[in-house]
């Protein structure tokens, strides 16, 4: 079976309207898009809703996709615009809600799970101290492995600005994690 490139799938979807082509694009990118959104909003249900909104925007806008950039580049730009738009609409700087940890696929011993959970809460808190722009920078480059210039394109900013954001995000995160860990150790 031939595996079609993203751009070929887009073309076939636009021409035929057959949903299976769109479904394939969703299958390829749903995990990635959600992984880009979650660290910025720090809320599972919001991340799911925004991931859905991104793909609906993509579905509606595919006929306008000109193929000048890769489909993934276009998709990530929409993901970032949608996420920042959501945060602007909410007019709030999202904070971690410390929901129940998600189901973990690989079986972990309970003590390991507890340690991972504690560590995750500290990272949650540290990330929540960042502005959405700084969270987006660290998400795109560190967690999703984008180059700085790709991340700058997704965010619609200059490459130099993205460098500065990553630097600033790392500085704040280190400081916050150290502060939180000190606080946790004292409270034990």
């Amino acid at each position: 079976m031939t595996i079609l490139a993203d751009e070929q799938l887009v073309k076939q979807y636009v021409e035929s309207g057959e949903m299976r082509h769109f479904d394939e694009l969703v299958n390829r990118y749903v995990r990635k898009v959600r992984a880009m959104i979650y660290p910025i909003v720090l809320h599972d249900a919001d991340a799911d809703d925004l991931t859905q909104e991104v793909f609906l925007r993509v579905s509606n806008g595919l006929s306008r996709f000109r193929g000048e950039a890769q489909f993934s580049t276009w998709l990530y730009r929409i993901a970032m615009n949608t996420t920042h738009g959501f945060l602007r609409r909410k007019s709030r700087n999202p904070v971690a809600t410390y929901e129940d940890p998600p189901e973990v696929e690989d079986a972990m011993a309970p003590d390991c799970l507890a340690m991972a959970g504690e560590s995750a809460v500290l990272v949650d808190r540290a990330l929540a101290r960042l502005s959405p722009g700084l969270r987006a920078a660290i998400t795109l480059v560190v967690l999703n492995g984008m180059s700085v210039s790709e991340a700058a394109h997704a965010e619609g900013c200059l490459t130099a600005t993205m460098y500065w954001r990553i630097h600033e995000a790392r500085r704040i995160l280190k400081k916050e994690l150290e502060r939180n860990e000190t606080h946790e150790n004292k409270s034990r």
Partner: protein
Amino acid sequence: MKTNLDDRLMQWASFKAPSRKHVAELTRRITREARYARHEVQAVVEKPGSVPGWSKLAYAGLGAGVTCLVLVLAGLVFLPRRNPEENGFTALVGISAEQRASQGRLFSEMNRMFTEGLRWVVQSGGEVGIGLDTVPVARERDTPPLLVRVTVLARSEGETTWRQAWSADMMVHDQDIVEVAPDPRSNNTLAVWVYALEDGKLAVDTQVALTLPVALTSRLNTVVTRGLPTEIAATRTRGVEYRIFQTVDTVNASRS
């Protein structure tokens, strides 16, 4: 340059990553909503507020003669209502093999009549409405039509037996989104989307907005077993208790 902080963030991301099951559910939700959106854009879905089907008939230029024919045909295949006291509670909301067969015949006959352009059939209170594709639609899967039955049961205080207060049958194609007002005497509206899963079960999204016999709205997105009634809402008002059920099954008919 990769730092310890980066490693820690990566571990955090792994810990926070949704399960495969969660991603599969999200994928299903997105593809379903995309189908909704596409159908809204194409405006091929009947909207509530008018008697569904008849405008399509007019559009098809078949006029009142066809209307009568539809009613006669439907009358022929209507099954007599079962007596709830004889058949028990399930008989009020379930779909019998006989009904699956008769509804299948109805759908097949109408589909042939409209040269494969039949989109949906709805029956309620002796009325029959149909919807036609305004443009040729190539459906992705050749699955039999699905019958969605929504039934409102009621009983007054002190009564022990339930009675059927309202019911509507909708026959739709797999994955089609259909929104109709099944009964011109009420403003009740139903919207359904059904997707036949590989394991034989059915993913169903039902939206019910009733004004009669009771004002109630409900939306349920669930996976059901074919033919097994599901309660989708319940309420009590003015001394009358109401329970709303849906039952979904395939009908015994090919699309051609």
